[in-house]
């Protein structure tokens, strides 16, 4: 990347940060639609999980199992906060790391599969996670974990960096800021990853794993790395979700969610890092808008999805970036 095209990119990123962190909260305050905070927080968190799915697409694997890691992440954070009285802020990275670790163990054998076979195994993972949550003692079975306390303060050397969420008059706004900041961090990290040499190696693996390993690339290790990062995103998204809802149940993330994470990527565009973000936004609001059509909701929704995939196989972002080289 030359310094010259770095400037407009940085400007676009800065504008985006200003819009989501300043303009949108101001607009919501002016219109008194504070319920939108919750909706937009959900979109931000779901897009983090979708970004993870996007990364597995990037190495050439169809991942329909992200719901499992979102669920595991939610439970890990909830259990650490309630049972072990750990700070939410510590439980958040731990939830992500736990998911990354679990996915590395699971990924080692299943990432050898490709195409529909890998997809089928991941589809089962979500159901395995749900049933485990139902069966295990530590997850409290079908009753789930409720009354999760909101995030406490972050203090460093006696200096309070983030006040306790209890102290906020508008707790929804605090959660919105948290979700959006996490989303920005995750997508920035993903953007850097994809545009680094690691991303180049991932792309090469997607094109041809045999040739990549013939060039000395440790393909099995890099596959697991990509999948672990993907699951880390799922776990982080799920953990914040549990904190916002202050509860987590076995049915908090189901196969439906796993499928939606994947659809978000398709809709936004698999060649664009920010595809899953746009896809999640459009899909989430699209589904809600269609609510008024009652019994026809699913019919219209499915029809539109099929049409979009036929007309825009490279996703919504291909409309704007069509002329540009995908990276």
């Amino acid at each position, binding site marked *: 990347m030359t310094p010259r095209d770095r400037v407009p990119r940085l400007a676009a990123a800065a504008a985006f940060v200003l819009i989501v962190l300043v303009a949108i909260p101001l607009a919501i305050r002016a219109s008194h639609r504070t319920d939108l905070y919750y909706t937009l927080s959900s979109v931000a968190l779901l897009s983090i999980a979708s970004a993870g799915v996007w990364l597995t697409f990037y190495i050439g694997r169809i991942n329909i199992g992200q719901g499992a890691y979102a669920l595991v992440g939610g439970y890990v954070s909830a259990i650490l906060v309630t049972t072990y009285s750990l700070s939410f802020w510590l439980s958040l990275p731990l939830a992500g790391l736990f998911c990354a670790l679990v996915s590395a163990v699971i990924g080692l054998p299943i990432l050898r599969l490709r195409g529909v076979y890998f997809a089928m195994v991941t589809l089962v993972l979500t159901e395995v996670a749900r049933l485990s949550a139902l069966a295990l003692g530590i997850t409290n079975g079908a009753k789930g974990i409720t009354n999760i306390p909101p995030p406490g303060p972050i203090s460093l050397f006696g200096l309070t960096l983030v006040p306790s969420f209890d102290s906020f008059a508008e707790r929804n706004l605090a959660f919105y800021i948290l979700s959006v900041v996490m989303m920005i961090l995750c997508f920035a990290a993903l953007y*850097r*990853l994809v545009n*680094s*040499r*690691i991303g*180049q*190696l991932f*792309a*090469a693996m*997607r*094109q*041809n794993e*045999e*040739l*990549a*390993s*013939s*060039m*000395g*690339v*440790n*393909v*099995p290790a890099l596959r697991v*790395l990509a999948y672990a990062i993907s699951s880390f995103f799922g776990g982080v998204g799920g953990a914040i979700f549990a904190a916002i809802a202050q509860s987590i149940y076995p049915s908090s993330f189901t196969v439906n969610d796993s499928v939606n994470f994947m659809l978000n990527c398709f809709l936004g565009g698999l060649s664009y890092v920010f595809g899953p973000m746009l896809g999640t936004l459009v899909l989430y609001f699209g589904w809600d808008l269609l609510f008024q059509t009652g019994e026809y909701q699913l019919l219209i929704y499915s029809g539109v999805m099929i049409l979009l995939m036929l007309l825009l196989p490279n996703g919504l972002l291909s409309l704007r970036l069509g002329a540009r080289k995908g990276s």
Partner: protein
Amino acid sequence: MAPIIEVKDLTKRYGGLVAVNDVSFDVQEHEILSIIGPNGAGKSTIFKLISSFVKPTQGRVTFRGKIISGLAPHVVARKGVVRTFQETTIFKGLTARDSVIVAHHLRSHASLPGFYLGTALARRDEAEFGHSSDEILEFLGLGEVRNEIASNLPQGHLRALGIAVGLAADPQVLLLDEPFAGMNHDETNRAVEMVRAVRDRGVTLMLVEHDMAAVMKISDRIVVINFGVKIAEGTPAAIQKNDKVIEAYLGVEDETIGL
């Protein structure tokens, strides 16, 4: 001089099928050695065994005296034995230049986290990969098309790109699987020159190839495989006169039916 590659009693069985049967031969440093034989003779399987993409049922392959058969393919590549593939197997969606840059993996000094963070070492690596890729592309006559997506390139360029990708891995031994397939006469002549130039860079080459004219022109020695068994080994001139080879390619003269 000790051989760079030593293939010893190599056997590969797939169930009841013996794809490679007790094959032994040596490859000398800076040599161009071709493996030929009728379709399905087991040539490609020998390549897969040498590059360790499949494990031998019996026997072994050594590289500079050390056993490499049974190691993971990327470890074998790391040691300096690099294989390119049959058909037009390249990184289809990448540009020619990016394909070659990616293939520089083994020359990295920086670690993966280093590349992520963009350390000075990683930036130096990246600059070096860029220069080296341009040099290799130029060397193989791909300078003009470096920014084309690989899948849009014509046959001749694709084969050259395959060799370029192999060269980028800095091999000591480069295994080329049918480098001249699908080429016309002129393209083949150019490719033959290319392979010779690669050897002159100090690389030992092994080829699996069907184009007999090209094989005879380019090879220092030839190993002939039929039904998984080595039936002859020698210089192109000797192979052309070898009865067993003629028999394998043209069939037995059978006097009873008047042939």
